[in-house]
């Protein structure tokens, strides 16, 4: 039998030594070295006249920069939307048990994950060279509607297709992993209550899978935000293209790229906070 002694008894018994945690002098030394290096770098950048901080300030809120920023945000949101919706469909196809749908889903992922995104962007952009018109009609029969490919797939459209279709391939893997992470018993319980597979997926499985889907999707969104800068290859006026157009005239590359960096940092920060809130929302019922 072990008896817990009240505090004053412990004192009286002479076991009142103070506990001293282990010291970590190495950590302090390392922090100091890094701090000095950081101060040196910042000092060097701030005092360097070639950095032209006045130019950074002038262009931070300049109209073309803000317009480019808007374009970057629009592409990010729309391409992610395409990726999530199409990725969700591909994930459900993959898990459907229908061999045709499973095959299509696997083939899609394999194709779009194998080709560099930059190549896909250029491909959609130059598609009109081999396919001048796109029409809708009966296979091998009459065509009802026909449109010029260049009108149908604008620069903007090419950007969305290039980024969104590739994103769908990655999102389908993330969503599939999320759906598979929900224990089998959940779909069995739903089935035993007479729910169809579709209803069980929407009402029971997907809400639980969200907890596993949201964090990697946040990563994808952040990575998409940065990947939009690839549209510079098809001259779509996004944030990067806008600052490039400016420094092509005034040759102040670093100050203008600093402007772009500032906005990318801000947008990534906002997305990270949004991700935090989503995670909290979908963690409901799991933590007590």
């Amino acid at each position, binding site marked *: 039998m072990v008896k817990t002694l009240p505090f004053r008894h412990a004192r009286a018994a002479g076991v009142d030594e103070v506990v001293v945690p282990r010291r970590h002098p190495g950590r302090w030394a390392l922090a100091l070295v890094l701090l000095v290096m950081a101060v040196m770098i910042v000092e060097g950048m701030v005092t360097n006249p070639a950095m032209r901080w006045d130019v950074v300030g002038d262009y931070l809120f300049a109209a073309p920069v803000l317009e480019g920023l808007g374009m970057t945000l629009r592409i990010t949101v729309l391409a992610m939307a395409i990726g999530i919706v199409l990725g969700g469909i591909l994930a459900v196809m993959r898990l459907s048990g229908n061999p045709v749908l499973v095959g299509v889903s696997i083939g899609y992922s394999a194709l779009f994950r194998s080709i560099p995104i930059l190549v896909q962007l250029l491909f959609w952009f130059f598609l009109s060279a081999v396919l001048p018109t796109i029409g809708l009609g009966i296979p091998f029969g009459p065509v009802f509607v026909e449109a010029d490919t260049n009108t149908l797939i604008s620069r903007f459209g090419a950007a969305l297709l290039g980024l969104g279709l590739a994103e769908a391939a990655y999102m389908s893997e993330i969503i599939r992993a999320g759906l598979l992470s929900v224990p089998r018993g959940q779909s*069995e*319980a739903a089935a*035993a209550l007479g729910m169809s*597979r579709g209803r069980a997926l929407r009402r029971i499985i997907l809400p639980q899978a969200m907890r596993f889907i949201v964090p990697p999707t946040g990563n994808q969104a952040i990575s998409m935000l940065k990947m939009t800068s690839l549209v510079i290859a098809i001259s779509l006026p996004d944030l990067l293209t806008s600052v490039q157009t400016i420094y092509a005239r005034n040759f102040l590359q670093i100050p203008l790229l600093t402007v772009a960096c500032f906005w990318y940092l801000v947008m990534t920060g906002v997305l990270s906070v949004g991700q935090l809130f989503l995670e909290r929302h979908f963690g409901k*019922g*799991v933590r007590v």
Partner: protein
Amino acid sequence: MTGDALVRAEAVTKSFGHVRALRGVDLEVHRGETVCLIGPSGSGKSTFLRCVNHLEKIDSGRLTVDGELVGYRRARGKLYELREREICRRRADIGMVFQNFNLFPHLTVLENVVEAPIHVRRERAADARARGRELLARVGLADKADAHPAQLSGGQQQRVAIARALAMRPTLMLFDEPTSALDPELVGEVLDVMRELVKDGMTMIVVTHEMAFARESADRVVFMADGTVVESGPPRELFAAPRHERTRAFLSKVLM
């Protein structure tokens, strides 16, 4: 042992790959009857139970619930697998309680209970919620309606699972080892709820290792081994004077 057979199984077989889980099960369960399936693990008790609501497809034989084939339709001398809608409609009338409760963790207790009545039966939300609260009161959990499953003990979770199944007004209740995952001191509260159902005349098939429950509450006890029914009879007879050596050996191990 009154009324006609609600569940009728004839020569039902089921294999998982090379493992023959059921090798010709014959069994009848009558309306209002409580049947306990007992037997060593791997004897096919749970598999048979899962066949009754088509969570597992049978390979051969005939299995009917309320006169309708489970999962199939007979036409021109062949059995055609049913469409999903039909399977769901029939499952909705059969309640099932699982060993691991399988409550929906993202929904509150009351939401768990009313989910299927509202979205499968298309009951009005207000009616379903009122009845859901009634059922929770019946299993002694009226005050837990707004809790999440993770906040409940195992015994409480299993009682919610029973209320959830009852909310669909089932004609048949299936229990798959409902107390096996519970701490010993929580088994009693779940068995109490099940005894109430027996009293109310619910038709029940219970796979269990609770011999005391089988002895007191079952109308009939069925002993299964190696995928077949070895023997069945009223609990008093089966426990006191088993006819088969297998039954005797099993009972001598579980009845101390």
